[in-house]
């Protein structure tokens, strides 16, 4: 008697490298993840500023000239926009992971907290500078 031969030949497609370009949802996800790139630049500026501060007045002056260049301002504005976008996505996800209160309340609460902290820091720095 013949042993039956299986006709199975499952076809497995491979996920291409460009999978994230195929759908708007994935593109938005990649944009969210990419917000870290301009933020890295901002952190670089911050560290450079701290370093200059420890090196005396001349260095501090050159840091300030560096920061006033058009492209540096543009990149930092981009970093600001990116962090706002990231915050928006994060604040929307947070109530789903930790459903402590109605989502709308948690989302507006987080924005309010951000505004208060930002205003506090600005006030503090403003007074100090």
């Amino acid at each position: 008697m013949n042993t039956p031969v299986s006709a199975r030949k499952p076809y497995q497609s491979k996920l291409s490298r460009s999978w994230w370009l195929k759908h708007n949802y994935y593109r938005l996800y990649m944009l969210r993840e990419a917000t870290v790139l301009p933020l890295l630049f901002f952190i670089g500026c911050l560290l450079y500023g701290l370093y200059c501060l420890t090196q005396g007045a001349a260095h501090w002056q050159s840091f300030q000239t560096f920061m006033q260049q058009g492209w540096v301002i543009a990149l930092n504005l981009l970093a600001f926009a990116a962090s706002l976008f990231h915050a928006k996505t994060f604040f929307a996800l947070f109530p789903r992971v930790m459903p402590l209160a109605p989502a709308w309340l948690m989302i507006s609460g987080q924005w309010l907290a951000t505004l208060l902290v930002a205003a506090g820091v600005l006030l503090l720095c403003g007074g100090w500078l």
Partner: protein
Amino acid sequence: MTDYQLLIQRYDPEHDNEPRLQRFTVPGDHTTSVLDALLYVQQKRDVTLGLRWSCRMAICGSCGVMVNGIPKLGCKTFLRDYHSDITIEPLAHFAVEKDLIVDMTQFLAHLSAIKPYLINDYSGTALHKQTPTQLAKYQQFSNCINCGLCYSACPQFGLNPEFLGPAAITLAQRYNLDSRDNGKAARMPQLNGKNGAWGCTFVGFCSDVCPKQLDPAAAVNQAKVESAKDFIISMFKP
């Protein structure tokens, strides 16, 4: 009646080396679902078309297909919502057996790996008591129909089939949150591993495509919180 253009992915393991698209014209009105259209093709055009279905009412979870690249239940998706060619392919990230039929072995293995049943040392005959508040904690996550759409929406599962994936982790949360269950310790090793909750990067598309609005992405990320707690507690244990 309107004529709709369907592009259906065909794959015959006995003759084809890779899938191809085949065009069919299907008549439909505002009540015609994608599943109705596929059954029309099977009954009137090509009897060899392979597809899975059973209930036709979004409860058995067997009719999942990609419609224009998005995972959908065929019986819950209507032709009226599409205005040009409708491309119908088998669920993404799974191996295709024939036409629209995929092999779900891996998915089922992931589901059973997280021990999806009540684990406790309860042996009496009296009924378990549960308050509505206790029920509400996990009820949303208990509505899964195991259709696998979330796995087709998840690029992490596409990249790494060992990743437990949205439905399995949601199911683990469903039991971990159940007041009648004591099996969390038995499930945590699965969730803590690199193929567990931490394999998720919160793409979130799984929640978008879930036909039962379970929000699996939320469940997976709640599992991350649990996993982190489990880790911290384990540090203080001798």
